[in-house]
């Protein structure tokens, strides 16, 4: 696979939330392109739509939200598919396997009543069942060769696992799994899965993985919990990893560790990462390219260095200008984020923009390539200028 192939393309994605207070136009035609193997940062203020974008990619926007326009094209092993048009079964095959997500608050992303092992096992049971069954079958073959008295049971187990491999939801399997003594056949696959769970935890450099696997989420520290969440996401070596502010809720020191981890994994797994954050410092450390979002639009995309050196969009400029530096003082951006229920006409940044021109409050700009591999959504560049 060539490194420069695109893995994800969001075209004019529109997501609306129908709430008590009105229709919230959360995503107003988001455009984004990601290349294979790259880490794309998605920055923006709270409420600009970063999380919604990530959920929309997985078609998991919660009610009362709806995807109402545009498409999300993703490259799978079988070609490019538009995720917004797929049926539930296909999407479920992709979620967790080809695209995986890391969440902002690790403690709330983990179910408090199930152990770490249980929750990691879910990913394996769903997407790598065949592989696990195969390993169990191999073990059974080894046991059969030993010619012990239990050969009869081994043959029965073989039967179960072969069935599980082909049709895990088979009615017969469902019944058998509930009968107390007979369902001990599941021990084998549970053993295999536990091995895999521990292995994955080790990859994340979690100390004492055997013990952690048996722990409950509330027994884990914030950093550990986040590593577990990352482990859950990486369980099936996804092609695209979406990280939704994975370090926001953690201490700064832990943040550094997690970032280090992410960098290592980036090199090791060669996944593409969509890294959502509001922290420009993190972006500088981890990302190859950056997309800046404002009020439901992606307003600028470029390589990290390029954007820091030559920000084109007035918002990006103001954002970078507002970073406090010694001796410089505070230069916050005037005004407030617009209400997404009654957004301003034309460009949504216009009311706060110092450089607005007449067309800005009449027509929305389009995302165009203003410079080499540097995209902006602003009337100051492109056809009008």
């Amino acid at each position, binding site marked *: 696979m060539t490194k420069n192939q695109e893995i994800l393309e969001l075209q004019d994605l529109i997501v609306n939330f129908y709430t008590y207070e009105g229709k919230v136009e959360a995503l107003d035609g988001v455009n984004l392109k990601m290349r294979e193997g790259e880490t794309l940062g998605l920055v923006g203020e709270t409420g600009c739509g970063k999380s919604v974008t990530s959920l929309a990619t997985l078609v998991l926007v*919660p009610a009362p939200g709806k995807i109402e326009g545009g498409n999300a094209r993703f490259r799978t092993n079988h070609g490019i598919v538009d995720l917004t048009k797929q049926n539930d079964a296909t999407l479920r095959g992709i979620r967790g396997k080809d695209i995986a*997500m890391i969440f902002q608050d690790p403690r709330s992303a983990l*179910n408090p*009543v199930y152990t770490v092992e249980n929750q990691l096992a879910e*990913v394996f049971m769903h997407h790598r069942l065949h592989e696990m069954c195969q390993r169990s079958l191999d073990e059974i073959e080894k046991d059969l060769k030993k010619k012990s008295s239990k050969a009869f049971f081994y043959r029965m187990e073989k039967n179960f696992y072969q069935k599980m491999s082909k049709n895990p939801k088979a009615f017969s399997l469902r019944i058998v799994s509930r009968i107390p003594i007979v369902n001990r056949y599941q021990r084998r696959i549970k053993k295999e899965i536990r091995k895999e769970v521990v292995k994955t935890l080790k990859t994340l450099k979690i100390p004492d993985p055997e013990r952690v696997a048996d722990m409950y989420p509330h027994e884990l520290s914030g950093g550990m919990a986040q590593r577990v969440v990352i482990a859950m996401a990486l369980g099936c070596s996804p092609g695209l990893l979406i990280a939704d502010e994975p370090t926001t809720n953690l201490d700064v020191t832990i943040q550094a560790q997690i970032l280090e981890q992410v960098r290592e994994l980036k090199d090791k797994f060669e996944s593409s990462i969509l890294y959502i954050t509001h922290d420009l410092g993190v972006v500088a450390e981890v990302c190859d390219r950056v997309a800046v979002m404002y009020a439901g639009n992606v307003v600028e995309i470029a390589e990290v260095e390029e954007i820091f050196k030559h920000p084109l969009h007035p918002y990006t400029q103001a954002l970078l200008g507002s970073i406090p530096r010694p001796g410089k003082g505070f230069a916050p951006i005037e005004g407030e984020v617009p209400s997404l229920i009654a957004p301003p006409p034309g460009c949504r940044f216009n009311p706060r923009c110092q450089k607005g021109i007449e067309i800005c409050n009449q027509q929305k700009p389009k995302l165009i390539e203003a410079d080499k591999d540097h995209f902006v959504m602003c009337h100051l560049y492109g056809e009008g200028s």
Partner: protein
Amino acid sequence: MGLRTYIIRRLILLVPTLIGATLLIFAVTQLFDPVARATLYITNVQQFTPENVASIIEKYGLNDPAYLQFGRWFSQVLQGNLGFSRTARQPVFQALIDRFPATAEIVIITAPIIILLGIWLGVKSAVHHDKLVDHVTRTLSIVGWSLPSFWLSIILISIFYVGLGLFPTGRLSQVAQTFVLTDPSFIRYTKLNIVDGILNGQLWISVDALRHLVLPVTVLTTIQIALIVRIMRSSMLEALNKGYIVAARAKGLTSKEVVNKHARKNALIPTITLSGLMVAGMLNGVVITETVYGINGIGLFAANSALSLDIAAVLGFTLFAGIIFVVSNLIVDIMYAYLDPRIRLG
């Protein structure tokens, strides 16, 4: 801490609660005059003649200060002597034991129905919330909760017994009752007619008992189920909004798995806690239901005793009900700790 330690701790906490409960009952006894209180100490009717009364009062020091009396009475209770019931003409404890199976039969059938049906309806309501299923379920459960149990009982008798002749009142029909009590081949292993019927191979007894149980079980279920449905629904709605639901979906799980595996277990936690209330509701409910349906269980015993001011019986029953309630709360707490790992380590 672990589950075992938690259980032991809760068992230890049981003791002061039970002692406190008996204290309360004792305080109520003090509202009566010594003659009435004498019934708390005797064990057969012969003892209670006018001549003996004075000596009983003397013997048990019923005119002594309260704390002394409490000591004597408490030690007696611990030995199982709850006094003598005027109305039943037996020792209170014996009367309760004799009548317990009738009540148990009702409760054993009702409780699982309320819990299982309630949980199922609650989940359905939450998953389809604000749709027709939800509105119908909620309306029906509010209606059920608002019905006076004695009224519903009477209406059901009027329609299904008087009108349609389908489900009679009482525990057993005349024929079955005579058979159970007098036939030498019938051994009452458990005193629960349904079970005994099966164990003795006389299925018609079991069927008869079931027929008689339909109406009281319906009344109790209709009224109590609202509690479970409501709490299950709201805790499901809460659980479905949590982050781990989205995370589970992002892993590729089906809606069904997400609801049943992830949301439901979390939602069950507050529901289980409330089943303690359900037990109280049933203990309350059987008093009236047994009275209307003429079932000779501990509820009817309580109602009759209260009416005749048979204090030994009333208070004995109250203490009995209290102990059942406290123990069931303990069981509920243990189940809660089993379901929610966060509690055990607190």
